[in-house]
């Protein structure tokens, strides 16, 4: 097997005295979609925030392309090619759609390339083109999610971290967004997808992890998890 693009080794993270991640290990192979499923409060968002360098790590190691990044500040992690579309979208409400996209390209200086990538984003999500002069805060939830993903792509990342892209959206919109994720993956993007909607996530993922109160309890090929009776009972409602 090739070197994993992202590897977490025994990662511990806590908020004050509350330990959220209790030594989790996750591997993402290049050009794969890996999903982390789990209930509310299992530590999924904390996992992504720790990877992105927004939450300090207590113990353990995070390797990106073999390089340790767990002591690297957030803005440098992004520069290395690891972008995140955060939970709850977190778009900039009083910047226009286009300015939001430009912020995604903050670390880049190639104007022509940025313009090209904005066009690419409009191609991926055509509705954003119609909305480009509108303020981010005026978009619907689905449009905001599309903007959040498009914005994350603007740094030309090697890998994308997606936190709950289906949260609070209508089924039609969710399908559109998951189609886009698959399309990105076909073009070679590695994806770490965190989802509460386990069925949907496992359907498009290659590999899956189950996270329960800060510990990885299962790890298997996504198809396998989809048919595992324990997963079905706990997360798929069967």
């Amino acid at each position, binding site marked *: 097997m090739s070197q994993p693009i992202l590897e977490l080794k025994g990662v511990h993270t806590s908020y004050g005295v509350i330990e959220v991640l209790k030594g989790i290990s996750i591997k993402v192979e290049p050009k794969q979609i890996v999903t982390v499923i789990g209930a509310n409060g299992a530590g999924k968002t904390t996992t992504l925030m720790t990877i*992105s*360098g*927004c939450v300090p790590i207590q113990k353990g190691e995070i390797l990106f392309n073999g390089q340790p990044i767990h002591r690297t*500040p*957030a*803005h*440098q992690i*992004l*520069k290395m090619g690891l*972008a*995140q579309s*955060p939970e*709850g979208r*977190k*778009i*900039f*409400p*009083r*910047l226009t759609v286009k*300015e939001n996209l*430009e*912020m*995604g390209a*903050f*670390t880049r200086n190639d104007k022509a390339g940025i313009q090209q990538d904005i066009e690419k984003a409009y191609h991926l999500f055509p509705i954003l083109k119609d909305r480009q002069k509108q303020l981010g805060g005026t978009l619907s939830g689905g449009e905001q999610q599309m903007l959040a993903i498009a*914005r*994350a792509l603007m*740094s030309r990342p090697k890998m994308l971290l997606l936190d709950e892209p289906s949260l609070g959206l209508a089924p039609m919109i969710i399908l559109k967004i998951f189609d886009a994720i698959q399309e990105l993956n076909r073009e070679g993007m590695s994806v770490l997808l965190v989802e509460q909607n386990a069925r949907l996530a496992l359907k498009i993922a290659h590999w899956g992890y189950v996270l329960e109160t800060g510990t990885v309890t299962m790890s298997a090929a996504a198809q396998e998890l989809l048919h595992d009776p324990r997963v079905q009972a706990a997360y798929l409602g069967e």
Partner: protein
Amino acid sequence: MDLCLFAEFSFQSLSQYVLNGLLMGALFALIALGYTLVYGIIELVNFAHGDVFMLGCVLTYFLCMFAPEYPTSLIFIPLLLLIVPICCSLLNITINYLVYRPLRKAPRLVPLVSALGVSFVLINVGQMAIGTSPKSIQAQLLPSETNQSSANRETENATRSNEASEELTRPRRSWLTWADILLIGTVIPAMTGLALLVKFTKIGKAMRATAQNPIAARLMGINVEFVIALTFALGGIFAGLAAVVFTLKITTIDYLMGYKNGLYAFTAAVVGGVGSIPGAVLGGILIGLIYSLGAVYIGGAWVDACIFGTLIILLVFRPSGILGTRVREKV
């Protein structure tokens, strides 16, 4: 200053007071920008800001001791407008680095109380520098106003017999002083520059993005600590510009002036909508007008009551200020 035209209403004197109010308002607005910029980014009411302004005035006072004679002093003014803002901005960056930055993750009340502490420290520094009694600038940097006013006085004497024309000449005496022109020439480019910076440049957009969502800004690769430092630097520059212009216009300084003018400016920021840049300018002008007109038509002793009364009334009906956006919490 000579006899005031207490309650003697005329449109010409009114226009003079309105003008004075606008000028003072522009000064308050410059200081208010420092409050509003910092609040916009880290939601801290930087109580020390007014005292950074005061130390800027103190520095201007000392630098004026080395001022050459008029008219060579005219070259000295741009130098003041360069040195003092740079010093104020370095001071502001240092305060941020030493005091506020280590408290970034602390509950919001902690940096707030620390800001009060910094304010006291700066007041004491000012007191050590110039003592407790007010100080006046001795040097004459700007063209003298006396020629102009003595000329007016002659006209006035000549027309003394004619009551009607005296009414016309009197307010004309000090329509715009040279200090006022300096004020206008400083404030307008400074504010235009800030507006352009925030609206169009990449770093300006990064400032707005950080203010709107600091976590997302970090995920965009924006170095949030750098943006915060830059914000303090900008606030310092505006405090420094205000300090130079204020010192040359009012010519008297004291170590407590930062407290009072800072409070006016902070009120201006809140009235306009704290966190909003146009709001700070609008609020500054409004407070300046109340300051000037209130002193004449209501009475000098009531100025503070008028200003803070306006604040209270406005906050009752529009808690987010005139141009402030109501923050909508969204899950």
